[in-house]
Each structure stands twice: as C-alpha cells, then as structure tokens.
C-alpha cells in the first residue's frame, strides 16, 4: 500500500510519515502541491493525505486537479480549520474523509484503513469475530469468553464489537463515541471510560487473561497481550 502525504509543516509531516511507515505503509511525503502533483503522476498511490493550507495551492484545488487527471484514489484531508467548511463536506460525501488538527495518530490510522477498505473491493461482511478466547456472534449478538456466555447490554455489545473489529489497534474515546453512539464531540467527562470499565468487568473477569487495555493519553485497545 503506497500513500502520498502532502503536508507543508515539516514536523507534522515527519511524525505522520513515521507513524504510517510503522503501520506498514510505503509513504511518499512532500511539502508542496507542485511536487505532489508530479509524484501522483509518476507513481500509483492507494490513498492521499492532503493538508488544506499548502504554500503554493489550496489543498482542495490540488485534489480537484488530481481528479481531473483521472486519479480516483481516496483522499483524507487534514485541516487546521476547525469547522470544516461546506466544500470539504462535499468531498466527504464523495467518499473521502477529513481530520481536523490536532488529531490522535490512532484516529489518523483508523481513517486511512477505513478509506482503503472502502476503495478496495467490498469485503465479505464478517458474521463472527474472534480474539483469543473471545468470540462474538454478530447475528445472534452473543459474546462468549471461552465457554462462558457474557451478559452484555446492547450498548456493551456494540462497544465490544467495535473494539474487536479494531483488535490490536488503539481507538480513542472520540472514535468510540463516533462509532458506537454516532456522536461527534469530545466529552469533557469520563462517560466513555465508565462504559469501558463496565465492559471490562464483564469481559476480563476472574480467571481470564485481560484483553481490554488502557493506553494512557490515547485510548483503549483490545488485544491478546
């Protein structure tokens, strides 16, 4: 998977590039629209990550030019503009995505994965998820740890499903709110954490190896340690 990263702030470019490389992507990073356009013509990229405020061109114009050249790779927009304007929303509806600064790397990676999944041939929708001895039956909405059936509320099941789908990857509280509760805001209190604690008390009960881990400062991860 090759990604094109266009970001003029070099410190941001550096850490995003490093995070993407660590996640297993090949990355072409550049700081201006001109060279980005050249790179996009030279090589095939699976997705673009484009900052809106570029020194030589507006990011949206760069996207428009790439599209005009027949390049259909999905685009993740990075923006320091807080309230994302209508044009960006239009792009989003076209199958692309945006992320406002500052962002958590976990979220950036999740969104990239999401874009790549959307653009690739539609995967067969899983009906079962398994992580270590945890099993989720998505159709019957039943969760089992080993042989023991877990008594979960509807919300708890959705939360566990989201963690399982992202097993091994860190998810932030904002991502959890967005995908489980379909709400877009940063809670100032520990509402999400309380849900996680309750879920954890049911999933990681006595005698089982803990699966739900807190990554301080970032969020949570479900993994077989």
């Amino acid at each position, binding site marked *: 998977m090759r990604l094109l990263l266009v970001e003029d702030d070099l410190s941001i470019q550096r850490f995003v590039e490093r995070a993407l490389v660590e996640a297993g992507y090949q990355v072409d990073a550049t700081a201006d629209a001109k060279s980005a356009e050249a790179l996009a013509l030279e090589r095939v990229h699976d997705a673009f990550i484009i900052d809106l405020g570029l020194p030589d061109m507006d990011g949206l114009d760069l996207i428009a030019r790439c599209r005009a050249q027949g390049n259909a790779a999905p685009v993740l927009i990075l923006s320091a503009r807080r*309230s994302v304007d209508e044009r960006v929303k239009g792009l989003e509806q076209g199958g692309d995505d945006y992320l406002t600064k500052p962002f958590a790397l976990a979220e950036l990676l999740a969104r990239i994965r999401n874009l790549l999944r959307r653009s690739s041939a539609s995967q067969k929708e899983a009906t079962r998820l398994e992580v270590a001895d945890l099993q989720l039956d998505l159709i019957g909405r039943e969760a089992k740890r080993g042989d023991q059936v877990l008594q979960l509320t509807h919300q708890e099941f959705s939360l566990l499903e989201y963690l399982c789908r992202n097993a091994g990857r860190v998810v932030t509280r904002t991502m959890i709110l967005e995908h489980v509760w379909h709400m*877009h805001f*940063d809670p*100032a209190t520990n509402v999400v954490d*309380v849900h996680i604690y*309750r879920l954890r008390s049911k999933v990681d009960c006595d005698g089982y190896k803990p699966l739900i881990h807190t990554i*301080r400062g970032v969020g949570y991860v479900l993994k077989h340690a």
Partner: protein
Amino acid sequence: MAFFIVYLVVAQEVRSRSDAWLTGEAQVLAQIAEHTPRDGLYNQIVKEVAELAMQEVPDERGSRGERLNSVFFLRANQSGDILFVGPGSKEVFWRAIKEAHLQVGVPQSIRVEGWYPAFRVVLQVHGGGNPIYLGLSERGARHILQTLTYRFLWGWTGTVFLGFLISYLSTRRTLRRVERITATVARIDSEGLDERLPEPIGYDEISRLAKTFNQMLERVQASVEQLRAVTDAVAHDLKSPVTSIRGTLESALSAGNSDEWRDSVAQAIEGLDRVSSLLNTTLDVAEAKAGALPMKRVGVDLPAVVTQLLQLYMPAMADKRHEVRTDLESGVVVEADLGLINRTLSNLLENELVHLPPGCQIDIRLRPHQGYAELVIEDNGPGFPPDIGSPPFERFVKGKHSPGHGLGLAFVEAVAQAHGGALKISNPPGGGATVSLLLPLAEKVLPTSFVKAPVHI
C-alpha cells in the same frame, strides 16, 4: 412655467381693462358727438373732449406728451372730412383703420405704419351714422408686462441668490459638524475608545448620527472589554495546562526508567487534549455568538435524542450514585442541527456530572409548551453559586470553585439562540438548580402521547 401663466393672466387683465376703457370712452365720445350741434364749434368741442378723455388713459405712466402719443381719436363724416386728434398724421391712421374692417364695439389690434407697438382700436357709430374711432397704443400694456417681467426676474435672481446663500451657510455649518465628528473619530482611532462625540440637542441627521455613533462606540467598547476579559481568561486557562505539560515533559527527560517517562508523556497528551478541547469550545462559543455556526437543520426527535444520550451518560451517573428520573413526552420534534443538539444536551448532562456531589436526584422533563419544546433539568444539588452573577452565560463566567472553564452554558445558550430558542437557569426556592432549554417546535407537529419512559442502564 408659473411665471408664464402669471404673464398670460396679467396680459389678459390689462387688455380687458384697456378694452373696457376704450369702449366706454368711445361711447361717451359718440354721445357727445351726437348731442353737439354741427357747427363750426363742433369739431373743436369733440376734439377738446377727446383730449380730456385721453388724459384719463389707464395704466399709463410718463409725461402728458407720451400719454397723448399713445392715444388717437378719429372721426370721419359722409363728406370724407376727417377729424383727428392724436399723434402723427391722420392719413396714416385712416389708412390703417380702413384696412382693418372694424366691427362696432369690438376692440381690435391694428398695426399703424411708423408706430410701434400696435394700437387697440374700437369703433363706435353715432346717430349721424358717422364712425368714431378711438385707439390706444398697446405700449401701456406692454410696459406693464415688461415691468412685471423685470420684477419677476429680479425676484427670481434674489430668491436664487438667497437660496444659494442659505444652503451655503447651512452646508458650511453641517460640514463643520461633520468635521468635528471626523476629528473625534480620528482621536478615538489613535487614543482610545473612551472618547465620545459631542451630542447636540435636536433630532436632525447629524445629531442622530452622533448618537448612533456613540451607541456603537459603547457596544464596541463593551465588546473590546469582554474580549480582553476573555483573552485574559483564555491566557490563564491555557497557561496553566501548558505549564504543567512543560513541567511533566521536562521531568520525563530526567526520568530514569521507561515506565516513568511513559507516564509523563501520557499525562502530557491528556493535558494537550484539554487545551485543544478548550480552544475548540472557545472558538465554538465565539462562532455561535457571532451567529456563524454552520447548521444543517433536520427534524430532530428530541425524546429519542435525550434517551440515547442518557444511555451514554447513565453509567457515569450511576457511578456517582445519582438517581435520574425522566418524564419525556414523545413526539416532540424540533428543527435543528442534530450534532449541535447532541453537544448541547451532553453539555447539560456533563454539567450535572461535574457539579453535583454524589447521590443527588436529577429530574429530566420534556414537553411541548407554547410552540417550544421545553427541556427542564432539575436537581437537588447545591444550586448555581451566587458568585456566578448576571448574565450567567457569558464566556468564562463561572463559579469561583467551579472546575470547568465556564464555557458549557455559554455554548448551550448560543446554540439555543442560534436555533431561535433560549436557555434559562435558576435556583428554585426549594433548593437545587433548574436549567430549562427552549427550542422552537418544528412546523409539522406529530401526534403526541404521554409516555413515561423508564431508562434502562
């Protein structure tokens, strides 16, 4: 135009007056001619009478000579003798009269060779069948009209000049006042917002301008002062986390083992998240207050949204041993931005979580009321602190011991107002705090029914 009309009217009047005189005099002369015996003296008497009559020429100024010059009397008898009293030679007048074919008693204008302007002439016939002609030069009428024209011109010129003078003076006065305003504004620009324009008494445009300008200055000054207060508060609220983040990272640098610096970094990230959320909310409130929040209005089923949010918040509420009771009337639909409504309601619920001591009771009621959806959140906690002051929704207005940034309610109110609603808070006499949020109901009202919705945790 008006002058032209006046001119015509006066000309008509002058002509009818001189015609009346002519007709009258001619009749008198005709009678005299009739009753006077035809002897040698006859001609003399008629001439004398005619001269006398001529001295009564109407509207005629000037010397007697001129008067005589402007009138003639002419009588012809069957034998062709012509008695003529008047200026110039009788042949010229006689020829002109003969060419004119006058009717008895009807005055008519006749051009006489060598004389200008024309004469107004009337014909009378006396008993002997001899015609008597009496003519009056139109010079008198013309003179009157000329005088009228001159006077009008003078009057007009005078009026125009006076008008110019008045408008010049008043414009100069106005411009001086504008100049004073400009000078004051320039001073305000360079020295500060404390200065005000002198407000003249009166209701003219300049006074109104000055008053409006001063009102605007009041508002600008108030906003600037508020901005300063906000900037101070933001600076304070930003500086403390930044200081702590810096300190944490610095101590991480000197920390020996990886667990210690991992902990510090996590702390720093949490601090940064708080800073970024503070920034976002500050900008949101500013944007909402400026009416610049991007809104996508859809029909929002409020009881459903509240129930969904409560499911999110219930575990946290239960952790603090709060008892939450709800009474949500179903079918209360508002036209609003769903994302903003979610954030607004979660702000209110987070307020309860943050400010209440453990083990409180929270009542949440929703009902339609006079065209609004009224959401009331009532608790039996300590209530709003008295130092919150008024108005309570200003950015950064918060209780001294309140842990938040004081942005929550400001944001809620701004969103409510952006939707055409309102936010009210109070400490009811029985204790606790009451927050009520009003949002205008959607136009299409769905059938409503009472449903007591128990919330499952």
